[in-house]
């Protein structure tokens, strides 16, 4: 049977506010356990939550970027369950009236664009962490993370493959870092994904029974987990079994998902409006002020790069994978007036080197200005692509400009017709056999002659000119 995969994602985006969502406690990551937990996070008797307004502004930014509706009346609800890293015994979240509803996100799968609908995004507080190692069989509780603001972004079940799910997660990740509302650090848990996965016979209308994979904190794990889960569900069904609704965890070591709790164990969270917090009302003016302050979004910038700089849609998508990359590209492309060259270098050599060295664009040793210097010299034919690569390597290792490197290493391309003619004539004289073959119609023989010229010039001769002059002389 042919199966169709259905995936919806719930992403927990940690907002990068300085203080927690309901207290003035710092949110900085990495402090000693329980040093960033005040009486509020510890849920002492008598403490009360006070809303951090910066959370609302950041949520509105995402809502606008998703082209969603911003609910102007926001109600916080208590989600009740017992767990040691949830000190109040309830999480303050939103149930009815989430701040963001009905948005969409355009993703690129291979070369295809696809729109994924975003159901909602709501504000809530993070829980603490349970540490199961190093406590001789006991569990340690670290409440530093408790009360860190989260936006839970829930998609419609619009994705049909693990690749689409990853593309959605990556696009959302780009967007939240682009907007400056999340640091995007997945290792530190700033962006965590739950995937709801089900399969159904192709053509069937109703959804199959879903299982939810919890807490995936890398794109690789997201992909592996979904692929494993899809195969598991298909195998189960084809073996005549049933998929039961459940929450599962992904084990990166075994590459498998395993059951955490079944539907029968599902909590009744007993949601109700939190009487400690008044509804947060958002004015139209506040929304408009944030709209006016929005940066150009990746989608718009991508389209503009195609239009203004003539780069391909694929290149434009890569260039807008982060705001820093896009800004880097735009600076180089504008100043050099060489959009395609700039795109090739940034998506090619620079991306590869950064990737190899585990750096991001912010840590690129070649500044936009020095890259402009290189591209200008390629465009004006001073450098062949081969020489350009040499200069690029030197730029990476030093602080010199492209011109200074060309000067120092004598890498200027030879475009002087007289000089090239002289080398061509020498090559013709020294290789009568190749000349004869070319004249007999063997095109390849010309390359051998050109190779001799380039060798004689130590690679500096302008290759296009060499070809032209060779053809002239042999015709």
């Amino acid at each position, binding site marked *: 049977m042919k199966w169709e995969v259905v995936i919806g994602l719930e992403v927990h985006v940690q907002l990068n506010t300085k203080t927690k969502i309901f207290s003035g406690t710092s949110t900085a990551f990495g402090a000693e356990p329980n040093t960033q937990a005040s009486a509020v996070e510890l849920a002492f*008797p008598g403490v009360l939550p006070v809303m951090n307004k910066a959370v609302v502004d950041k949520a509105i930014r995402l809502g606008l970027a998703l082209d969603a509706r911003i609910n102007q009346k926001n109600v916080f609800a208590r989600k009740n369950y017992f767990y040691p890293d949830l000190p109040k015994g309830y999480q303050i979240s939103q149930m009815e009236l989430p701040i963001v509803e009905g948005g969409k996100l355009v993703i690129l799968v291979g070369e295809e664009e696809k729109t994924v609908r975003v159901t909602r995004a709501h504000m809530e507080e993070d829980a603490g962490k349970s540490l199961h190692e190093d406590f001789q069989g006991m569990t340690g509780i670290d409440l530093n993370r408790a009360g860190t603001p989260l936006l839970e972004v829930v998609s419609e079940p619009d994705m049909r493959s693990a690749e689409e799910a990853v593309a959605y997660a990556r696009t959302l990740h780009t967007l939240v870092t682009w907007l400056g509302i999340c640091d995007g650090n997945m290792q530190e848990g700033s962006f965590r994904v739950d995937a709801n996965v089900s399969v159904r016979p192709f053509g069937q209308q109703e959804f199959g029974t879903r299982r939810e994979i919890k807490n995936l904190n890398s794109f690789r794990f997201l992909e592996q987990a979904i692929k494993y889960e899809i195969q598991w569900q298909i195998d189960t069904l084809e073996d005549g079994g049933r998929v039961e609704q459940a929450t599962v965890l992904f084990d990166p070591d075994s590459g498998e998902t395993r059951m955490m709790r079944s539907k029968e164990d599902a909590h009744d969270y*007993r949601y*109700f409006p939190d009487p400690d917090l008044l509804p947060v009302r958002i004015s139209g003016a506040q929304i408009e002020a944030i709209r006016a302050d929005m940066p150009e979004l990746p989608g718009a910038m991508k389209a503009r790069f195609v239009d203004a700089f003539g780069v391909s849609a694929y290149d434009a998508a890569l260039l807008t994978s982060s705001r820093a990359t896009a800004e880097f590209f735009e600076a180089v492309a504008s100043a050099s007036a060489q959009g395609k060259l700039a795109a090739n270098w940034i998506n090619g050599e620079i991306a590869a080197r950064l990737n190899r060295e585990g750096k991001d664009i912010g840590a690129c040793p070649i500044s936009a200005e020095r890259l402009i210097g290189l591209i200008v010299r390629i465009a004006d034919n001073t450098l062949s692509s081969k020489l350009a690569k040499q200069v690029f390597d030197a730029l990476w290792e030093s602080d010199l400009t492209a011109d200074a490197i060309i000067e120092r290493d004598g890498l200027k391309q030879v475009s002087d017709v007289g000089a090239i003619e002289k080398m061509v004539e020498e090559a013709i004289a020294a290789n009568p056999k190749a000349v004869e073959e070319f004249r007999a119609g063997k095109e390849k023989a010309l390359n051998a002659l050109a190779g001799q010229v380039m060798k004689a010039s130590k690679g500096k001769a302008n290759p296009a000119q060499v070809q032209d002059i060779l053809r002239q002389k042999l015709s």
Partner: protein
Amino acid sequence: MTKATLKQLSQQLAAGAVSGVELATQYLDRIEALNPQLNAVITVDRAKTLAEAAAADSARAAGTAGPLAGVPILHKDIFCQQGWKTSCGSRMLDNFISPYDAHVVEQCRAAGLVTLGRANMDEFAMGSSNENSFYGPVKNPWDLNAIPGGSSGGSAAAVAARLAPVATATDTGGSIRQPASHCGVTGIKPTYGVVSRYGMVAFASSLDQGGPIAQTAEDCALMLNVMAGFDERDSTSLERDKEDYTRQLDRPLNGLRVGLPREYFAAGLDADVARIVDEAVSELKKQGAQVVEVSLPNTELSIPAYYVIAPAEASTNLSRYDGVRYGHRAAEYKDLVDMYEKTRAEGFGDEVKRRILVGSYVLSHGYYDAYYLKAQKIRRLIANDFTAAFEQCDVILGPVAPTAAFNLGQLSSDPVQMYLSDIYTLSVNLAGLPGMSVPAGFDRNGRPVGLQIIGNYFSEATMLNVAHQFQLATDWHSRAPAL
């Protein structure tokens, strides 16, 4: 000196007739002598109290003290107070020493009030008789066989027995007014949001409100000046200009429109209580007040609505008592769930458990609309009743409770009957209005009966004016039990 009012004590201190340390010592001695029979005070710490008193005396000597500096106060054990056990009447918090001060406690400290100790109360403020305390019941100083009322029974009994000139208290469904009425003292629950709930251990967040219990309305006004005020740490605290609650005390009552809700004088009201309220109304009429009949048609619904909303909020407010971070933890358990279950089974008393169960039930999936949501709609109707009534009158008068204090043990096995006795106080909390109880007489058994004054939102000064004028003409408030 321990018979004096807050106002008188502040004058004596200002005149240098007595020092804060002397006053504190006298009250501590009286607590030591009389508390064993009353059980109104559950924590005293002589050294801490005397240190606070000495500090107040120094401030007075230095000329930096406010008018109330050196006056002793008793705090209901629901207000977190740094360095003091804050048990909330529960075994669950029997070992909890608060690391911080409630806003109310901070305000009292800033005014130089001297902490005498901590008042007994129904566990987590749940109860109308003070029989639900882990530390045992409080006795009514007028009759040791009678309950003092609850949940602020310790605060009311202590002021009545003159163990303290004033006490802090809280009122979620009548917990200031009903014990004040049963103990023959004056107490006021302000408009919801006037007194910060920060550091006040939560029972039902949308209903809880702190306030004072004292001998007189004037003392209550002075205390409200200390306790009220905006606090940004409580999102439901109201940002308003600071008020002087004494400003209208001396106004004559000429032209005051007094509303008597028909539903408060129907079947179920004890004849003595009815008579005492009538007599109080007559006194106010004599002073020029006009009486109008008003109607609060949804009064009866306040009981079911309250006993859905309050337990719902309580059930989740009390989830934090899980034995993980502070408070009681069971000694032996086999796993996490077992630890939770044993800890909470041991730490909470029956009434608290009953309300957690009811609250969890009414919030559960499938029942939420039928109970919680419906109760919230009734709450709106009750508030609308008051809005309509206050178009016809300035204050509403009525009984606080259907009877004077009942006997200890009389209703403790019949929770529903106990809940029904809250009929006249609950709707005030549901509507968020201010309400107070003023001593107005004694029933056939010699037990005190209070007159309830209900005001419109933020009309505390008007209510205190009515109560003060009533107290100028009567002496119920200055009678003290023989102990």
